[in-house]
């Protein structure tokens, strides 16, 4: 990772180092409005940063698909519900 001093600060211009340092924060919606807007502007006009952001965004979207791969087993769900009914669920 790039050093902390590369992180964008309020009012400062965003360069490539700062953009890459905060890229995941940006993609995760973790930046505040001012910094987010300046980082977004940089990514939109900087081809390498745009391509990097596009790659990471697509990667995160693919990771999200794993959500559908793993669900609570039906038998476990029934066992939990049975336990909760014994505790008073639905009473």
């Amino acid at each position, binding site marked *: *990772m790039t050093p902390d001093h590369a992180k964008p600060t309020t009012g400062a211009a965003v360069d490539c180092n700062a953009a890459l340092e905060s890229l*995941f*924060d940006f993609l*995760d*919606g*973790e930046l505040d409005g001012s910094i987010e807007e300046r980082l977004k502007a940089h990514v939109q006009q900087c081809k390498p940063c745009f391509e*990097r952001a596009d*790659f990471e965004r*697509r*990667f*995160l*979207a*693919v*990771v*999200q*698909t*794993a*959500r*559908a*791969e*793993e*669900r*609570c*087993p039906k038998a*476990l*769900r029934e*066992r*939990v*519900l049975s*336990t*909760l*009914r*014994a*505790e*008073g*669920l*639905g*009473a």
Partner: protein
Amino acid sequence: MMTDAPEAAARPAAPPEFSAAAIAAMDDVYRFARSLTRDPSDAEDVVQDTYLRAFRSWHTFQPGTDIRRWLFTIARNVFLRSRERGQREVTLDDEQSAVVDAAQAQEAWVRGGLDPILDRTDLGPAITDALAQLPENFRAVVVLVDLEDQPYEAAAEVLGVPVGTVRSRLFRGRKLLQHSLAQHARDAGLLPTRHSGSPA
């Protein structure tokens, strides 16, 4: 049906909205439990105990807050109690640190290899496998943020670590995932043969 246990008899029934919301989150709690335990049987125990504790202490849930965050926190506490504290606490050993460093050093290779396959729709099982291989600390953060859409602050609260730790583990966990997926894609013949300078 009520049990005849005194504490159960004295406890008011959980409201339907709590029951519905909590039960609807069972897939999410199970995934998180799997990320903590790796072992399916242990994960089932964590889920079972989590829901029992949640039901018994539903009055501590604050309406209007994220019930999944509340359940994740209970699940982690259940998990921590289920093992001897410190015995299986996972930290990065030298080998894992080397893998993380390598994953970052091979960024260009990983990116070049992954990019062509990110639009495939059949990567789910490979991602699940790659997630299972992540060190525990990274896996829990990646599951909470990337699969369960929890904000950094929520993940930090659930895991009892600073937000900066979440950010660091998330970055490294994602880089490990990318490396693992690129390796999988290559092993499965989905990628072109590596060019010179690629990792051994």
